[in-house]
């Protein structure tokens, strides 16, 4: 047996699972913060960086190699430190050099899996860089010496002769402020995020402290040994107070303790950190220098993008590597990107929720930016974005929904009660929410310093406006599946009562920008218009409550409801189906519609469904081709709810079933699927199969 064991181990285990075991070991080592492993990996990481410098400087044409971040012994921690290479190459863009560099890195990454992905992004061809420098704020910021520390490791000085534009005082100030505020938000959400593991929470938290200390060091260093410092910043001393300085010192100490695996209670640190950050923000805000002339102000909207086919897909260890690309999306297309707001660390995607619909042009602009020399393959997958109004997916979806029924499929559709209005409860909630908004707008209009209004409420309100415009447009284009009569009425109503044109909404956007960006005196007329619009929508909600329209309104208002369609696939199982439908009647939360897809039944299923009396709309579809997925697709195509729930025809459900499912979806917009538990139904059967299932259920 030992012989066989060794043989199997060699052939099977080592060959096929060696890689996984290796990465697993690394993951465990990093997660446990076990000192010997940590020292080992720190050493290996050092070695990896040095080897990569050695191998890359041999490529002809490479001018200089820079490193962002610190190579100091204590700072290099595998998995936790951000080290980016920046490689300068002579002349114009040359594919062969780029490929050579990438090949080296790919080779090295086979030996050292910890070498990160940013090498492809960090190759700069000097001529291109100089010519394009003013056009791409992304590059401009990456090379901002006043924020990041770049260490030249090898080569001639390439950075100094470049025409780098320094961050102007106000911009630097704003970016510090923004960074602090952003961290504050993140750390506040850490407290009640159920999805993050403890280790991820800690990691983010200590990352925040590290960032804070970086800013602190910059501000404390008037001589500019870190690369310079603005006069405007030197005049304010947010950390001059010894109390605050002590606070920061303690936080940093905790951070050090954390890395030595002496973990301290987290709650106390959270509150300490929060207090400190809030005070910092106040101070920074207090020494505000007036409106910024540039549009580089940090935006409030965030989005994260994953570039498909990124380089780190292969050796990414779960949960430890950053996403390929993670950027902030600036709300309006004419604003540039602000890459300082990117966070290239562990698991940031989790914290960023963007509820704003992306536009096609915006996505294209992003692609253009990334193609400009950072990344070569730019398939942009949109995550975190539950609204597809402007995204290319919406059209695809609409196409499926519109053509699916008539052309692709040859099933007949029978609708029993589709025109029934929704339960009045939801309408009431929508009205409530709209009324709250109206009162908030009225409050805002009463205030004098309008630029200090509550940004969050205002943003919500603006989202309402923009999305309702989208609704209006799709109504006119006939894309929304309103009942026809309703659609005409609503469209004419909106046309008469609101000045909704494209130029109108663009002006809204500009004015909003004026408020948030440069803080010009606020136009009261704008608020008046928005109020009129909200009132119109209130009217619409009162007069036209229908399924699809309410689904749209739900989305607009972030109401805590979802419309759910229950889809049942059945085939010649009339008796069981009757039992299933009877159990649906007992639900606490009735479904918004029920679709029975009949997959070529040969019994009285159709009559049974027609005779079925229910307080919700019931629809029946007949699919002649036999096949589970075909029938399911048919059900998906005709379903109108935001959530589609499948259930087998031979199953019954508990009364609270749908409530729990809805609540689960409402936890997070990124939960795409919810599954429940399936138990064995009790019966009097004595046969072998039943006994077996019963046994397994009890085991």
């Amino acid at each position: 047996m030992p012989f066989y064991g060794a043989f199997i181990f060699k052939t099977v285990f080592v060959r096929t699972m060696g890689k996984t075991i290796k990465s697993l070991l690394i993951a465990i080592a990093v997660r446990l913060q076990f000192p010997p492993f940590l020292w080992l990996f720190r050493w290996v990481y050092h070695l990896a960086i040095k080897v990569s410098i050695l191998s890359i400087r041999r490529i002809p044409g490479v001018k200089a190699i820079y490193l962002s971040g610190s190579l100091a012994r204590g700072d290099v921690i595998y998995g936790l430190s951000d080290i980016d290479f920046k490689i300068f190459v002579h002349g114009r863009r040359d594919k062969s050099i780029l490929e050579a560099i990438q090949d080296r890195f790919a080779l090295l990454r086979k030996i050292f899996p910890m070498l990160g992905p940013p090498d492809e992004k960090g190759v700069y061809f000097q001529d291109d860089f100089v010519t394009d420098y003013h056009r791409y704020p992304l590059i401009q910021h990456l090379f901002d010496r006043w924020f990041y520390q770049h260490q030249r490791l090898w080569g001639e000085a390439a950075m100094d002769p470049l025409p780098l534009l320094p961050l102007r005082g106000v911009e630097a100030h704003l970016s510090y402020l923004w960074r602090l505020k952003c961290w504050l938000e993140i750390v506040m959400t850490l407290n009640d995020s159920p999805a993050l593991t403890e280790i991820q929470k800690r990691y983010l938290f200590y990352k925040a402290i590290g960032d804070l200390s970086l800013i602190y060091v910059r501000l404390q260093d008037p001589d500019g040994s870190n690369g310079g410092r603005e006069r405007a910043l030197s005049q304010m001393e947010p950390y001059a107070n010894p109390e605050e300085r002590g606070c920061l010192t303690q936080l940093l100490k905790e951070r050090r303790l954390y890395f030595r695996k002496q973990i301290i209670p987290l709650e106390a640190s959270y509150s300490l950190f929060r207090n400190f950050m809030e005070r910092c923000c106040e101070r920074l805000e207090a020494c505000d220098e007036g409106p910024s002339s540039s549009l580089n102000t940090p935006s409030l909207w965030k989005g994260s993008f994953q570039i498909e086919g990124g380089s780190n897909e292969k050796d990414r260890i779960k949960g430890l590597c950053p996403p390929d690309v993670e950027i902030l999306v600036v709300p309006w297309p004419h604003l540039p990107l602000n890459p300082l707001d990117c966070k290239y660390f562990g698991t940031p995607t989790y914290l960023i929720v963007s509820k704003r619909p992306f536009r096609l042009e915006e996505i294209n602009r992003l692609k253009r930016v990334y193609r400009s020399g950072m990344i070569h393959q730019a398939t942009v997958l949109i995550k975190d974005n539950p609204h597809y109004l402007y995204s290319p997916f919406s059209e695809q979806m609409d196409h499926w929904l519109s053509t699916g029924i008539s052309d692709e499929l040859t099933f007949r559709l029978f609708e029993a009660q589709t025109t029934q209005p929704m339960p009045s409860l939801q309408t009431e909630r929508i009205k409530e929410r709209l009324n709250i908004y109206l009162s908030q707008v009225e409050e805002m209009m009463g205030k004098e310093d309008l630029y200090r209004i509550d940004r969050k409420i205002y943003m919500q309100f603006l989202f309402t406006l923009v999305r309702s415009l989208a609704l209006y447009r799709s109504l006119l284009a006939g894309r929304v599946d309103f009942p026809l009569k309703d659609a005409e009425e609503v469209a004419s109503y909106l046309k008469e009562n609101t000045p909704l044109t494209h130029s109108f909404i663009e002006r809204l956007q500009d004015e909003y920008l004026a408020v948030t960006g440069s803080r010009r005196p606020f136009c009261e007329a704008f608020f008046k218009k928005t109020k009129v619009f909200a009132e119109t929508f209130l009217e619409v909600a009162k007069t036209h409550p229908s399924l699809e329209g309410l689904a749209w309104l739900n989305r607009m208002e972030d109401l805590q409801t979802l419309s759910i369609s229950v889809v049942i696939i059945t085939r010649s199982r009339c008796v069981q189906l009757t039992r299933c439908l009877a159990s649906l009647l007992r639900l606490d939360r009735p479904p918004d519609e029920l679709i029975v897809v009949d997959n070529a039944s040969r019994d009285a299923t159709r009559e049974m469904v027609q005779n079925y009396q229910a307080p919700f709309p019931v629809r029946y579809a007949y699919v002649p081709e036999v096949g589970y997925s075909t029938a399911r697709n048919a059900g998906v195509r005709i379903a109108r709810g935001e959530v589609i729930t499948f259930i087998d025809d031979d199953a019954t459900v508990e009364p609270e079933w749908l409530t729990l499912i809805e609540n689960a979806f409402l936890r997070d917009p990124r939960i795409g699927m919810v599954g429940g538990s399936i138990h064995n139904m009790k019966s009097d059967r004595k046969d072998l199969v039943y006994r077996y299932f019963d046994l397994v259920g009890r085991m």
Partner: protein
Amino acid sequence: MMIPVLTDYYEPGYLARPEYETLAAFFPNGNLSIRKEVFAEIGLYDEAFNKAGEDADICRRSATAGWDLYYEQGAVCYHEARRSILDLVRQWWAYGYHGGHFFQKAQKHRCEIFISLEARPRVYRYSRLFKTGKTPFRILLFLTYFSLSHLLFFLALMSFWAGFRWIALFLGAGIVVSAILLYLRSPLKKLSLRQLLIYETMSYIINFSHLLGGLVGGLKQRMLYIGPGL
């Protein structure tokens, strides 16, 4: 020799998070709810899965696209047991038959062998399977106790026939001893003899139909596929 992934399958709460990029969790179709936006992003059900496996496929696809899968333990539905043994066999045949296609869509390496001596191997723990990339001919073997012991039994028969009695005896003893060891470790120990008989008979039928279905379906997909079984 298992490769556990850092999160567990069927743990209440979040299952696949965006950062756990390729970890595919799985919900059976009997009690499954999907946002419509998921369909808009990843497309509808794959119609090649005619009889079974379409749920596993869509779960894998959506998890890869970055959607979270959430297991709500309280949302209970009661499912009727299969009417007859024939139904059960048909079902597990279909699981095996479409399993080849399912893994083919996601398999990365040309040849993969997974050895698991668990009573119920959980395929979805093996994250290495769920990576994209295609190669023309494939071998994918889940060597569970069922398939391994059959293989060893076959070897023992052959060696007995060829005259190597001692090797045959050795292999046979290996099968028996490992069966006893496995039994002692598994929760089956708690069952009575009658219950054990029922369990073993039925799981043998299920595993056998799954294996056969997997072989046939795999051949159709130009791959040698031995499914994970029950």
